[in-house]
C-alpha cells in the first residue's frame, strides 16, 4: 500500500469539499478499495471517509419508502430493515461474511456497481432512488454497465430510498470461490406490476428481465417462468460458469425467487 492522506468529514458539505481535492477518493466500508490499495493497484492521494457523517447512517421509513443512509453497513440493514422490507434485509444478511457485513456499506456497493454485487439487483428491482449530494437518480437511470454508474466527478451517494413492494425475494447462487453472486435474482411485486433484476449474469452488469416481469405481472407464479427462455448471448462466461449456464441460472433462480416471495 502506498502512503495517503486521510480525511473524515462529519457533514455532507465538508465531504464534498474534501472530495474536490486533487487525487481524492471516497472511502466507505473499504471492502473493495482497501484490498485494491493493498495490492498497489490503486494509490489515491487522499482518502475521504464517508462513515463519520451522521445523516448518512441508519435505516428509517420516510417519504417514498425505506430510507437507508449510504454509509450504513450491511449488518445494520440486515437487522433494521427486517420489519419493513424482509427481502432486502435477507439480501444484506447474505453478503460476504460477518466481517464484510460489519464494514461494507450499501452506498459503497451501489457506487462501485460490481457486476456480481447483490445490492444493485435490489435497487433496480425495487425501482429505488439513489440520492446523492447533488441530485436524485432513478435506479433505471443509475446503472450503466460494469463498474459504471450515473455518478459524476465529485458526486457521492448519501442515501438510497426503496419503495416497499407487496412481496419480494432475493435468491442468490454463489460463485464457488468469492461467494459473490454467480447469478442473483431479485423479484419485487408491486401493486402496479412486477420488477425482476438480475445480478452476476449479464455482460453489462445488473439488468431487468423484462419478459419475466411481463409474465409475472400477469400471473405471479413460478410456473409462468418455465415457458420463458433466456438468451445466453447477453450473459457472461468465466471460469465458474458459461453463458449458457448463467442463462439457465437466471431462469431457475427467478422461479425460485417467485416461490420464495410467496
Amino acid at each position: 500500500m502506498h502512503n495517503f492522506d486521510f480525511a473524515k468529514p462529519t457533514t455532507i458539505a465538508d465531504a464534498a469539499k474534501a472530495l474536490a481535492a486533487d487525487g481524492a477518493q471516497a472511502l466507505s466500508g473499504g471492502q473493495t478499495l482497501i484490498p485494491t490499495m493493498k495490492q498497489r493497484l490503486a494509490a489515491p492521494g487522499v482518502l475521504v471517509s464517508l462513515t463519520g457523517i451522521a445523516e448518512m447512517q441508519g435505516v428509517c421509513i420516510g417519504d417514498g419508502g425505506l430510507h437507508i443512509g449510504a454509509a450504513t453497513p450491511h449488518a445494520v440493514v440486515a437487522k433494521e430493515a427486517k420489519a419493513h422490507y424482509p427481502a432486502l434485509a435477507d439480501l444484506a444478511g447474505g453478503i460476504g461474511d460477518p466481517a464484510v457485513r460489519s464494514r461494507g456499506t450499501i452506498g459503497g456497493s451501489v457506487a462501485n456497481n460490481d457486476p456480481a454485487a447483490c445490492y444493485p439487483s435490489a435497487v433496480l428491482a425495487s425501482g429505488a432512488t439513489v440520492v446523492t449530494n447533488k441530485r436524485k437518480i432513478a435506479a433505471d437511470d443509475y446503472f450503466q454497465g460494469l463498474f459504471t454508474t450515473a455518478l459524476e466527478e465529485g458526486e457521492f451517494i448519501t442515501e438510497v430510498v426503496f419503495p416497499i413492494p407487496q412481496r419480494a425475494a432475493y435468491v442468490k447462487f454463489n460463485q464457488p470461490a468469492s461467494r459473490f453472486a454467480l447469478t442473483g435474482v431479485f423479484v419485487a411485486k408491486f401493486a402496479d406490476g412486477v420488477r425482476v433484476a438480475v445480478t452476476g449474469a449479464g455482460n453489462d452488469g445488473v439488468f431487468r428481465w423484462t419478459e419475466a416481469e411481463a409474465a409475472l405481472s400477469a400471473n405471479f407464479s413460478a410456473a409462468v417462468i418455465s415457458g420463458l427462455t433466456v438468451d445466453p448471448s447477453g450473459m457472461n462466461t468465466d471460469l465458474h460458469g458459461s453463458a449458457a449456464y448463467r442463462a439457465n441460472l437466471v431462469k431457475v433462480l427467478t422461479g425460485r425467487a417467485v416461490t420464495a416471495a410467496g
Partner: protein
Amino acid sequence: MPKDHGIGASTKRREDVRFLTGRGVYTDDMALHGQTAAVFVRSNVAHGRIKSINTAKAAAMPGVLAIFTGEDFKDVGGNPAGWLINSRDGTPMREPKRPVLAHGKVRHVGDAYAAVIAETVAQAKDAAEQLAEDSVIEELPAIVDMKQAVADPSNRVHDEIPDNLCFDWGWIEDNRAAVDAAMKAAPHVVTLNLVNNRLVPNAMEPRASIGEYNPGTGDYKLTTTSQNPHLTRLLVSAFVLGIPENKLTVVAPDVGGGFGSKIYHYGEEALVLAAAKKLGRPVRWTAERSESFLTDAHGRDHVTKIELGCTKDGEILAIRTETLANVGAYLSNFSTATPTFLHGTLMSGPYKVPHVYVNVKTVFTNTAPVDAYRGAGRPEATYSLERVIDKMCRELGLDPFEVRRKNLLTPDQFPYQSPVGLLYDTGNYQATLDKAVQMADVVGFEKRAAESKARGKLRGMGLSTWIEACGIAPSNLVGILGSRVGLYDAATVRVNATGNISVMVGAHSHGQGHETVFAQIVAEKLGIPDSSVEIVHGDTSKIPFGMGSYGSRSLAVCGTAMTKAVDKIIAKGKKIAAHMLEAAEGDISFEDGKFQVAGTDKAKTFGEIAFSAYVPHNYPLETLEPGLEETAFYDPANFTYPAGAYICEVEVDEGTGKVDVVAFHCADDFGNVMNPMIVEGQVHGGVGQGIGQALCEFTAYDETGQLLTGSYMDYPMPRAEDVPFYNVDYSCQTPCTHNPLGVKGCGEAGAIGSPPAVINAVIDALQRGGHTHVTHIDMPVSPSRVWSAING
C-alpha cells in the same frame, strides 16, 4: 471407561492453549534487532529470456541496502530433486538446475529473478517495482498444456531438455508384456480418461523466512516455515550455498500448516541467508498470499488413461495406466517421487490383481513446480482405481459393494506381495467395508433417496475402498526406489535431574498435535504424568536429527525412535536401580513408574533414579555413567499400510448442478490409536480437503501461463457449509506388524479415500435421476460442470 491420560486417551491438545489464545510464535511474529526486509521481483510472464536488469535506479532509492539477481548465484549450487528416477530405457531423468534466483530465463509467472533488501517492506516494494520496470524480459511462447509440451518439442522450458520430458517411467517394465497380454485376453475392458485436478496447498500461514549471520562466529541461522528443518539444512549446506552444517541452524517454530508445501527447500530461504551474510543484519521475508498462490509447490495435476480388464462378473484381471504428470517449471525436492513411487506402487489398491502396469511421463511446463500435497501420489492412484472400478460396475450391471468384496484381499493372504512392488504386512479390508456399510445404513438408502426426491433433489451413494503406503521410510527400500536420502527418524529422551523429561524429536508438528500425543506415549511408558513430558521439535540445534513430517510418518517412524529411546532410558534406569538397591540388574523390574527388585518390596521411584543419575554420589563410575539421556534412530522394515472404506452420500440439484455432500462415513484401519480425538481430527481435515478437491478446488492457467485462480476470488476453497458432519470410526484395527506401537498413520487417509467416494456418489445420483449418458465428470464437480454434464 475411556482412559483419561496416556496411550489411547483423547487428551486435549496442549498446543491449542497457545494457538487459540494468540500466543503461538510463527516466523513472521519474530522481531529482531536491526532487521531488514526482502522483497522478491517476480516474473509476470510465464516464459521469458532475461535480457537485462538495470539495478542502478532501484539501488539509489530510499532505504535500499542491497539488490541480488540471478547473476549473484550463478556459481553456487542448485536446489536438487531428492529422488533419481530412471526412464523405461534405463536413462536417468533430466535434472535442470533450479537456481536461487532465475538466471538467463524465467520459467513461470512468479519465478523470482531479483530480490531487494531495504530497511522496510514498503521501501523494498517501491524499489522492486522500479527494478521490474528497469528489467528487460523477452517473452517467449508459454508451455502450459502437458500434451502440447510433449507433442511440440520446438519450444522448451529448459533449453537443454529437448522434449520437455523429465522421464518416461514404467512400473514394472518387465511386467508390461504380461499385462498387455492379460488385458487382451480379458472378457471385458473398461477404459476411463480422467484428470486429477491441480491444487494450490493454501496453508493458513504463508511461507516466511528470516536469515541471520553472526560475523563474530560465522554462524548462520535460518528461521523458516518448514515441515522438515533438517532436510532444509542439508540442502542449503550440501547443495545450494555450501554453508557447513555445523555453522547453520535451521529453526521451524510454530508453523501454520503445510500439507506438503513446506517439506521443500525454496530459493527464498537461501536468499535471506546470503543477504544476511552480505549485510551482517537479519533479513526477513514473508510471502503475501498472492506469492503463495504463484510459488508454493502445487499438488496433483495428472492426466490419466486407466484400463481395467475383468471377467463379466467383476473379477479384476489386469490394470494398465498411462499418466502425464506435471512437474511445473523446476523439479521440487520430492516432485519425481510423487508421481512414481508414491503412485505407481499403489495401483493394485487393496485388491488381488495379478497384472498391473503403470506408465508415467513427467512433463516440464511453464507453471509453478508441482510436488507432494496431502496424500501425494496415493490420492491419484486411489482416484483412478476407484473410479474405474465404479465404471466397471455400471458397465456390467454389478453391485459396487459385491465387486469390492470379490476382489479385496482377505486376511489370510497377508503378508501380500503386490504386483507393483509393495509387501502389505497386515490388514482386514472386509472388516472396514462391513463397518462402513453398517455405519452408512446402506440398506436404508432407497428410503433416503425417495425423501430427497420429494424435496426435488437427486440422491446418490458412492463407495471407495482404499489403501495407502505410509510411514514414509524405510531407507533400504526407498534407496532402491531412487531416494537420495535416508528416511529414518530420531529422538533424544532427556530425563532431567528432577525427574521430568524433555524429548527432542525429528518429526515436526505444524498443526498435527505431536506435542500432546508424543508426551502421552512417553508418560505411559514411564508411568509418569503427561505433564512431566515436554516435546521439543523444529530446531536443528536442539534435536539429534530428523527427516520431518509428511507421508503420515511422524508417529510410525519418529514415534518409534522415541519409544526405543525410552526403552534405553528404562534399561539404564535398571542399572542405576540395581546399584542403588544392591541387587543384580537382571532382578530389577520396571512397572508403573517404579524400579523394583523382583519378589521384594525394595523399590525406587522413577524420580529417585533420575535424581541419582545427576547426583551420582557413590556411583561405580567404571561401570555406570552418570546422567540419564538416550538417543535412538529408527529405520523401519517396511512402509505401513493404513486402509479403509468410505461411503459418501450426495444430493444433486438438477436445476443448478449444485452438489451437496449430505453424509460421509469413514471406517479406517490405522492400527493402534494413540489419541482418538486427534485421529478423528486428522480424518476430518483430510476428508475436508478431499471434498474440497472433489467439489470445489481447481487451478487454472491460461494459454499464456497466467494463473487465473490466483486469489480466493477465483480459487474455491471448501468452507464449513460444504462439508457434512463426518461419521468416523477407527475400531477395525490390525496393528502394524513391524513397529512396536503397532501404528500406521492417519494424516493423509481422508484426502486419499474421499475424492472417488464423492465422485462415485455424484455419478450414482445422476444415473438414478435418468441421466444415464453421464459416466464421468472430472473434478471438481462444480455446479456448472454438473449442469453441463446433465445438459450436454
